[in-house]
């Protein structure tokens, strides 16, 4: 099982880094200074009760790119992505202040409906969570149906979405079976299909592979490669190799603060901050 060529992996000890032709061609098109942000957070602070878990995060999210959020446990990376579609406030006692712009509109402004935000900014969770009372087919359609929409041709939607997550061939004959009967990796791809059926603009992935085995992880990572042509993706991961493999940009969080945000190859080869280098070289976290 090879995921990406070894040259893509971080070689942080070497300050010259992986500047092989292969990786250069991949990165040439984008840079932090010229990126087009789909979303942008400004001085975003998040709280659980009295505890401040995000201490003023200002971060642009590049359009149709993959942004990885890395950092040690408890650094606020999950909280951060949950703020991007207003899922943070679902937890009792949780609140967020600051600005989160989606296409230049602040989604935390008083008159913005959180429900509408979540339709534009989809989410995939750490543990695959298909609806246990629904078949595979109904799981794909769940988002549309529970939002009161009746697609003209539901079968076409189901096929298109399952094709998009490369699950169609595996499940096309068992669409009527329970979604919970699939393997973990299949369930996670089903959940991604369920999110994509709503045609979101941004897809948030909160450690989508941490409950999966390496093969299933590889499938999901391949999928992310495909999806970034169409969607803006933010992926939280505690796996630095994964960030290096799938992300164009990487943000390093530590103790609720954004330490560094740059192109992934820069973060992993010549980080500006000592703490970033310490983390990616495994000195803590």
């Amino acid at each position, binding site marked *: 099982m090879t995921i990406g060529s070894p040259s893509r992996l971080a070689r942080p000890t070497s300050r010259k880094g992986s500047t092989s032709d292969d990786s250069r061609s991949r990165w040439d098109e984008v840079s932090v200074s010229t990126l087009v942000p789909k979303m942008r957070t400004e001085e975003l602070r998040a709280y659980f009760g009295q505890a401040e878990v995000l201490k003023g995060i200002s971060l642009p999210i590049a359009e149709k790119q993959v942004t990885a959020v890395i950092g040690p446990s408890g650094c606020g990376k999950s909280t951060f992505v949950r703020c991007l579609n207003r899922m943070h406030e679902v937890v009792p006692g949780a609140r967020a202040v600051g600005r989160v712009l989606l296409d230049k509109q602040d989604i935390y402004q008083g008159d913005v409906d959180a429900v509408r935000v979540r339709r534009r900014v989809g989410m995939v969770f750490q543990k695959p969570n298909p609806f246990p009372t629904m078949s595979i087919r109904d799981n794909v359609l769940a988002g549309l149906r529970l939002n009161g929409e009746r697609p003209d041709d539901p079968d076409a939607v189901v096929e298109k979405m399952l094709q998009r997550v490369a699950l169609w061939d595996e499940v096309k004959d068992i669409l009527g079976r329970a979604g*919970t009967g699939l393997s973990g990796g299949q369930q996670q791809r089903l959940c991604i299909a369920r999110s994509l059926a709503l045609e979101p603009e941004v897809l948030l992935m909160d450690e989508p592979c941490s409950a999966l085995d390496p093969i299933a992880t590889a499938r999901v990572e391949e999928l992310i490669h495909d999806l970034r042509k169409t969607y803006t993706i933010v992926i939280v991961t505690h796996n630095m190799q994964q960030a290096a493999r799938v992300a164009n940009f990487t943000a390093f969080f530590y103790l609720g603060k954004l330490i560094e945000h740059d192109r992934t190859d820069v973060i992993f080869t010549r980080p500006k901050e000592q703490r970033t280098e310490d983390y990616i070289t495994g000195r803590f976290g």
Partner: protein
Amino acid sequence: MFSRYARRKYTDVVVRAACVAAAVLALVPLVSVLYYVTSRGIGGISLAFFSELPKPVGESGGGMANAIVGSCKLVFLACLFGVPPGVLAGVYLAEFGHSRFGKWVRFSADVMSGLPSITVGIFVYSLVVLQTKHFSAFAGGVALGVLMLPTVTRTTEELLRLVPESLREAALGLGIPKWRATLRVMLRTAAPGIATGVMLAVARVAGESAPLLFTAFSNPFWSSGVNEPTASLPVNIYNYAVSPYEEWHRQAWAAALVLLVLVLLLNVSARLLVRSRVGTR
């Protein structure tokens, strides 16, 4: 060293024997009730028992068809009055029950589940019977519904709490409004368990006689609609058992057997429903 080991062995045997004895002892009432009711009641069971009205005193034969139908009617009405508010109250407690008001509701539901059923009978008597000025199936249904309410409420709450939080997050993450996520995802997932809870509550109230004495009362004939006094198996058992007539005693035993079988069927099917659900997971 050895003696300590021997003593431990000895203690183990004694305690284990005590536990087995206690378990057997607990089974004795159940088995003897089943045996006794069956042996006394089986003689009174006949086709006529299920199809005919009671005969006047002195005539032999007759049945309790009206009481069997009446019991079903009362249970149906009880579900109508008890289940929807119970389920909705359970949803409230599970979803919004962290408030002071929620604690208060939960506490009163717990108190209510310990309420003597005769008290509920008197309560509904003054609330419904005195207002409408006659006994009725409606009043009986209200009384049984009130008895079901706390069980249904707490079962619904407990089962909703058992639904993984990740499903709620999945639904909310899809941009589904909270009320719809609660009804279509959370409640839907907990539905089989809630149905079981409802069936157990039904099994409990189906055997109640005390709350029906002042509400549904009794009726030796067919009752039409819900506005007439209505016969029911438990009340008939009581009336027949305290009568001085041998024939009526026989009928009371038969009615007890029918009621027992009905309640057992409800209980067993509720449990099978749960098991089949767990099996498919």
